[in-house]
């Protein structure tokens, strides 16, 4: 077995252990300005922006308005609301947002072209609620920034104008545009083991906040000229009981075996030249 195949098995095995916390779709509570984060043992049908599972996930409408930043035309924004859905596994957060924008702006190839964009802002320290405009020095924020040009950045900021990009992005995004509507899926580990990165709580009794912003590129919205939300409480859904974990562990082992068999099959047909 080659090295990368061994690696694959190891990863799968790790998933099996981790996935002993799986559940059927649960219904999280929602309070005012709260974004429910439902728990799921496996995100198979949620790890794509168009995954079927999202149909089952509660959607929250988030009102947006000008962020009122100190930049020219700050009030000239066009998007007034968006929707948000969130799910977590034991290790990852899945956050899908969507909003209506009749113009699909993906290019920044010339001086007057601005791409559509979206951002998710989280307090760096989960229990704080920093100033909404990019936090402050004492109370910084993490920002996950997605651009219609296809780029994703993970940013750190301690106040307006201080945004700094983390060297490596741990956030993955996927997007789709259909019927005049963007849908963007952000996923990330709940708890990256790195300084200054927000740890998303995994216990129902832990609280944190989230805020959103979107930009309409064809209205030349950029930087502080954006439609932004207020802070919203993140409502973490509870994890399932222990017996379910055992069942999922068994299923997981089966998956590993199946995978190994498949790998061997591919090797025999010589389908892999690597």
């Amino acid at each position, binding site marked *: 077995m080659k090295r990368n195949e061994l690696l694959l098995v190891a990863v799968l095995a790790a998933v099996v252990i981790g996935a002993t916390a799986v559940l059927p779709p649960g219904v999280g509570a929602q309070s005012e300005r709260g974004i429910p984060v439902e728990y799921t043992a496996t995100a198979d049908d949620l790890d794509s922006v168009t995954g079927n599972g999202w149909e089952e996930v509660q959607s929250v409408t988030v009102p947006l308005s000008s962020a009122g*930043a*100190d*930049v*020219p*035309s700050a009030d000239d924004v066009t998007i007034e609301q968006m929707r948000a859905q969130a799910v977590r596994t034991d290790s990852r957060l899945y956050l899908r947002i969507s909003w209506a924008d009749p113009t699909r702006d993906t290019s*920044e*190839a*010339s*001086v*007057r*072209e601005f791409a559509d964009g979206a951002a998710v802002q989280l307090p760096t320290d989960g229990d704080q609620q920093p100033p909404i405009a990019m936090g402050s020095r004492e109370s910084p924020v993490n920002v996950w920034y997605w651009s219609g040009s296809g780029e994703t950045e993970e940013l750190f900021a301690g106040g*307006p*104008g*201080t*945004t700094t990009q983390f060297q490596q992005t741990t956030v993955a995004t996927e997007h789709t545009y259909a019927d005049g509507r963007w849908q963007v899926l952000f996923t990330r580990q709940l708890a990256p083991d790195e300084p200054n990165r927000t740890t998303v709580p995994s216990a129902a009794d832990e609280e944190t906040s989230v805020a959103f912003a979107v930009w309409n590129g064809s209205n*030349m919205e*950029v*930087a*502080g000229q954006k439609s932004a939300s207020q802070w919203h409480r993140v409502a973490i859904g509870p994890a399932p009981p222990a017996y379910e974990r055992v069942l999922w562990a068994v299923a997981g082992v089966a998956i590993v075996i199946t995978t190994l068999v498949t790998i061997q099959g591919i090797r025999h047909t010589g389908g892999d030249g690597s």
Partner: protein
Amino acid sequence: MSTSDGGETIDIADDVDHQVAMVMDLNKCIGCQTCTIACKTNWTDGGGREYMYWNNVETKPGAGYPRDWEELGGGWDEEGDERTPGDLPAQEDYGAPWDFNHEQIMYEGSDEPLRPMDNAADWSPNWDEDEGAGEYPNSYYFYLPRICNHCTHPSCVEACPRSALYKREEDGIVLVDQDRCRGYRYCVEGCPYKKVYYNAMKKTSEKCIFCYPRIEGEGPDGEVRAPACAEDCPPQLRLVGYLDDEEGPIHKLVNEYEVAVRLHPEYRTEPNVYYIPPFAPPQHAADGETTDEDRIPREYLEELFGPAVNDALETIEREREKVNRGEDSEVMEMLTTTDTSDQYRLEVFDEA
């Protein structure tokens, strides 16, 4: 900050030790674009900068580069406190850096004429070259070389919500910190001279850096050299140095004799590039006689350089007459020197 000596005050920005400055004598510019090419070859030949001309030379009157930049706003209000909003130029107003079908003609046997490919040639940075205004035989035009003015009160710096643009402490050169810049382009619209450019490949804004590696001694042969646009100029129309170098010609021409004036002072960014305004032969009457009428209307020069242009022109006129009478003129001496140690004074503040 200002320094004073014998009652004279030299205004430079707070928090800078010295301020680089340039004086360009428009009477010497022949529109050859050597400066443009020197700059392009050094700094903007690739990497998303192809369309940029940190140094350009435009025909005035004319639309300039980018097209109609003077109509796009930016700069400061009358009190100089509030920025006035500016617009981003349209990309096509910069003109496209055309590619040509040389390859096809030279090596593939094409019978087509050499042309910009993709057939998009309807504007370029110098499209209206030599057009000017007026009617034969009293038409007029002159060339205006432009770089970043490295202003004392730069609206591009103020425009950036991220403080990515800054004036260098040691010499007042305005730079874009490429690590801070996120390509918002507030500086592009905020500069009334439209001398900050958006690099779509890097998604950051970029601009003239006053060839700072050269003035820091990292140019060819490890010598301190003036910016390439100045040194490569065939008629040597530029003086380069520090505004606060009181022994230098720039201070004298700008502050003492007041013959070097700012372009569009009403933008209130306080440029540190100064111009010796252009003279032209007087108009001809219908019968071919020379008249006393200015060829370049004075109102037009005022529009470009503000009311200070009047005194500047009159002073130069007086100084020229002095030379014609065989008298000495420090002004004309400074404007006609061929001594490069007078033209380029960049080491005056170096520690001994």
